[in-house]
């Protein structure tokens, strides 16, 4: 059966690894992002790895005009249309403190841009009576913390949006998986101090695909982050507000 995946933010290493995993199953893949040269390279890579077809398409979370053409192109494919959202940006909290204007872009890239895209895709999933949305959030969205609460709050908003979308698509046979990765070994975390238990992007991609197959609602990857975050969430606010973690 033909499956089509739209991958938003396809230049990230996590997205690349996920694209490879679905390509090896013979999927059709739309690689959406800004660096077209890199996306074209990835399209060739996925086709060599077994994708039925892989195509680079322009996507900018801050430019809604780029959304409709992607959905229209995917609608031309037979079978179910799935989407995996890997977009997001994480400016240093100290940078945001200096320039509060950075909040708008962060929220647009990590939350409202992808949410708007998914809002446009939802009717397609409903019309075809199936399709999975993978939304990559973050453990940072589980609780506001001193070190990156702007990024965290954008992801928290995205988590809530995904929960609502899951509620909606569930009625039409669709599904939404919320993914909360811990620290992943990507270009974004390369060289940042204080990283621990850093996961390989390919392992994270494997976890995501497993969650899609098992129709999980929310996963933490690697799994132990669920325990870590349960503890962090359970600290009473009067104490938590004094901590710096």
């Amino acid at each position: 059966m033909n499956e089509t995946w739209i991958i938003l933010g396809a230049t990230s290493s996590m997205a690349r690894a996920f694209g490879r995993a679905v390509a090896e199953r013979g999927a059709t893949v739309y690689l959406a992002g800004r660096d077209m040269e890199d996306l074209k390279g990835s399209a060739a890579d996925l086709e060599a790895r077994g994708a039925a077809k892989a195509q680079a398409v322009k996507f900018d979370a801050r430019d809604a005009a780029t959304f409709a053409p992607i959905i229209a192109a995917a609608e031309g494919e037979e079978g179910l249309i799935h989407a995996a959202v890997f977009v997001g940006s994480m400016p240093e909290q100290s940078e945001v403190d200096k320039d509060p204007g950075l909040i708008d872009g962060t929220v647009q890239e990590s939350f409202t841009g992808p949410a708007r895209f998914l809002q446009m895709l939802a009717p397609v999933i409903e019309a075809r009576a199936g399709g999975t949305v993978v939304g990559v959030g973050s453990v940072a969205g589980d609780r506001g913390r001193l070190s990156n609460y702007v990024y965290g709050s954008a992801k928290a908003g995205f988590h809530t949006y995904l929960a609502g979308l899951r509620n909606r698509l569930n009625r039409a046979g669709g599904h939404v998986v919320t993914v909360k990765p811990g620290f992943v070994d990507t270009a974004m975390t390369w060289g940042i101090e204080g990283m621990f238990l850093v996961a390989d992007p390919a392992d994270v991609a494997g976890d995501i695909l497993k969650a899609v197959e098992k129709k999980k609602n929310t996963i933490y990857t690697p799994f132990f982050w669920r325990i870590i975050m349960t503890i962090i969430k359970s600290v009473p606010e009067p104490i938590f507000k004094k901590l710096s973690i």
Partner: protein
Amino acid sequence: MLWKTADYSGWGRVHTAHGEIARPERASTLARIMEEAPAPAFGNRRSYGDSPLNDGGRAIDMTRMDKVLGFDPDTGVVEAEAGIRLGELMRLFAPRGWTPAVVPGTGFCTLGGAIANDVHGKNHHVAGSFGEHVISVALFANGKRVTVSPGHNKAQFRATMGGIGQTGVILSAKIQMKPCPGTAMRVTERRLNDWDEQIDALEASTASYAVSWIDAQARGARMGRGILEEAELSDMRLPSRAKPKSVPFNVGLFSNGLFARAFNEGYLRRIPEAGKTSDKPMEDFFFPLDKVHGVTKLYGKAGFHQFQCVVPTDKTDVLRDMMMKISRSGLASPLVVLKRMGPGRAGMLSFPMEGYTLAIDFPNRAKAKKLIAELEAMTAEAAGRLYLAKDSLASGEMIRGMYPEWSEWAQQAAKADPDGALVNDMVRRLELRSAT
């Protein structure tokens, strides 16, 4: 961040380096680095010595540049970025009938590393070296991108094969794979009782893949005993069976003579007197140690050396003397390989020559270093050669004397990289670009 400060080492963990490392994930990032702050590149750092290191300077980790850029199922030509692992190429394409024509003993070796060391495999006597299957290479050096091939920029191509990254950072390459009917190997193993049987068996073998394991602890009449492994591609389809295992901490077992003797005895008896033929998944045959993560921890904290030499066919008596010295020392680990080599080599600094190659791991100890120095001298005496992918101890004078095309190579490196931006710790140690 683009640059991360780290301590890192080669596979043998004897040499270490401290410095900034970039790990680009996109061609645009890599191009920016090469324009602004060119630095030597490394892959999975499976070379044993100091060729992947640039102590005090910067280096580029190429492992995230690992896209397949094109594959033609009709011809078996594949083009890929330098950071892709050869094991990955095998995993992807063997089920579709094509496999890299030459692979070394680890699937973690990257495409770029295979070129920069002109690696060889268990089929060297038939298939030649890796570089002989390379169609073209894209390099970045001295601010520009160039493509080299046997027909275009031939001298730079020959300086690139085995040229430990000195003619430009290897961006991508196009290689010719070879057809394979399945994903398995039909392997025949039989015991050999002494050194003479080893040499006779390798000499007589007509198999496409042939390599011998030696019990380097056996002395006297049994000196040189071991197992000959011969193989052909099989049409069976077998997925890798080996389960990942890992060595949790620096245990030093392989540095222990008693353990090595016991291990070797058991390893030899694994093969029945009458020999044994079986089908093995390709990956398990080519990369037997890849599933044991942290295998080098078996040598303890101080790391280890691999001595690998090749001597001309008529100098097997020298190899025999070496083997005698080694077995008497009791220092050798169980990882010992003897192989007949053909003449195939693709570059000016390529290791292979027609003859026999011996590879042995030693723990990093004063006694072992002394023994290795003796073995190196014997190699030089026999007009043989040491392998840059393994070396961490030799002198520059000795190495340069073993590679007759060295000065031509040095000229090519100087031409491609006039500022010496790509010089790494090995090149410095052996004065490969500074000596005259």
